[in-house]
């Protein structure tokens, strides 16, 4: 692991301060999470009255409410397929774009860069209806591809730009060496760049997945059939709209969040592995 300076002394004051600062911030990030989980075991009234203590009347009813709709497993599957496909395709396409835009010089480069940045700016509300028209004419409403394709487009610019940031930080020596030895560009790309980028790839992939997973708006408009609902749609559908059932809402959030966290924690380990392997450079 990188260290700025080798420090062999036992916990110094400086170290301690660092830990305190980090701990404070981690409290702010962990607490809301715990809050949501605790409150998913309370009835809605209790959540409103006293949201900060442990449940007085511990109840599973919010979860049984949510699960009583048996399609929940099917929605998880839908979400996985949709967000998984989006992530994989975006990562491939974005890395390619990032590679091209950082390693080549050509006339259209600035124009393409500007175009890429511009697409980052385009609000989804402005394109959703024309996209809906298009998808509908293809007869693809309520299919997986209806959501996958626009989401890919929506994510490519962001992923490309982030990958460009990382690629810029990679020194050129290894590519140069391989290229001089006669390796074609594609080989350099697949055998050198991609493996080196693994931590960045994993990072961007997680964000991509999350963004697609949580994107309720696109999913709502392009998917109307309940059996194709991804999990965010389904849970919003279930959540009470007549008055607010905060308990059910907390349970829904928990149900949405847990799978992603599990995926993230697993991927974390891969990132670390990638780091230690990739750190052996040269």
């Amino acid at each position, binding site marked *: *692991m*990188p*260290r*700025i*300076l080798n420090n062999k002394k036992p916990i110094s004051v400086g170290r301690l301060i660092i*830990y305190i600062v*980090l701990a404070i*911030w*981690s409290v702010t*990030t*962990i607490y*809301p999470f715990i*809050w949501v989980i605790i409150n998913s075991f309370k009835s809605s009234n209790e*959540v409103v009255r*006293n*949201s*900060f203590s442990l449940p007085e009347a511990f109840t599973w009813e919010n979860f049984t409410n949510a699960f009583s709709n048996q399609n929940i497993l099917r929605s998880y599957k839908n979400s996985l397929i949709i967000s998984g496909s989006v992530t994989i395709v975006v990562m491939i396409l*974005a890395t*390619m*774009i990032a590679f*091209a*835009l950082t390693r*080549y*010089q*050509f006339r259209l480069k600035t124009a*393409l860069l*500007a175009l*890429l940045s511009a*697409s*980052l700016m*385009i*609000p989804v*509300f*402005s394109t*959703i*209806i*024309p*996209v809906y028209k298009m998808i509908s004419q293809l007869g693809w409403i309520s299919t997986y591809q209806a959501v996958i394709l*626009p989401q890919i*487009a929506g994510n*490519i610019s962001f992923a*490309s730009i*982030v990958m460009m*940031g*990382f690629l*810029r*930080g990679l020194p*050129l020596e290894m590519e*140069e060496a391989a*290229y001089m030895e006669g390796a074609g560009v594609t080989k350099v790309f697949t055998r050198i760049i991609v493996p080196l980028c693994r*931590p960045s790839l994993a990072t961007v992939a997680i964000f991509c997945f999350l963004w697609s997973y949580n994107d*309720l708006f696109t999913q709502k408009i392009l998917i109307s059939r309940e059996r194709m609902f991804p999990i965010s749609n389904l849970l919003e559908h279930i959540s009470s709209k007549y008055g607010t059932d905060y308990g059910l809402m907390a349970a829904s959030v928990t149900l*949405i*969040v847990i799978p992603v*966290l599990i995926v*993230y924690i697993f991927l974390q380990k891969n990132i*670390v592995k990638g*780091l230690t392997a990739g*750190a052996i*450079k040269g």
Partner: protein
Amino acid sequence: MLYKKKTPLIAFLLPGFAMLLIFLYVPFVDNINNSFYNMKGFIELQKFIGLSNYKEMLQDAKLHTSLINSLKMMGLTVVFQVGIALLLAILVSNIKRGQQFFRTVYFFPIVISATAIGLLFNLFYNYKGGALNQLLQTFGKEPVNWMAATTAFVMIIIPTIWSYVGFYFVIILTGLFDISDEIYEAASIDGCTKAQAVIRITLPLLRGVLCTCITLAVTGALKVFDLPWVIAPQGAPGGITHFMGTYMYQIAFVNLNVDYGAAIAVAIVVLGVIVSLVINKILKPDANL
């Protein structure tokens, strides 16, 4: 630069840009077209009105408020979101134990969707019985209307900034790992202190990543929607907490003035492009290559 043959270049660029073309650029051109017409509903173009939507923008006070709020948000996100993320990343890369713990934990707010976070903070800010007021009352103080005109903006900014620190944190941290140890070791041999190492080695080498982060932060600030809308729908109170993103949604989907909304979308994109070009000029991310 390095690679002589240009043909693979096309292969690399084509698929991605093709997707962008079909699902983003073409619909957006449609959107631009819509802004020149008076529209009835979401699809029907009724009457050509030329630039009159854009002229209306010049006089729309709520739009000006949204613009100013968005600009403020941009500044705040750069300083605080990226700033705090940078600080945390440097700190975390400095410690031996607990790195993985912090990395996992700082990520939590991002996993929770922005809407859920908004609902959470609503329960904090609620006047009657919200968590903050409950806390005040246990100390014998009067409840405060947190969403009153004077404080609403701050109350919205706090969760918006907080929730995305983890995002930049992870990106910067990954970038930090790309800096090989040898440079630091060489520097320490030369007598460089930790602080100097940060300023002279880390920051410059992070240039590309930081530029990315700042661009993303700024453009994110322009588009932000879910959080502000859940906490303060329709720019409550009275439209003073509107941002460009929320204002556009309100105009197009609530007021059903679709053509004007389309014009605002165009404005958002133009503004964003200008800002990101400026950032690129200032930070010169390609300087290292």
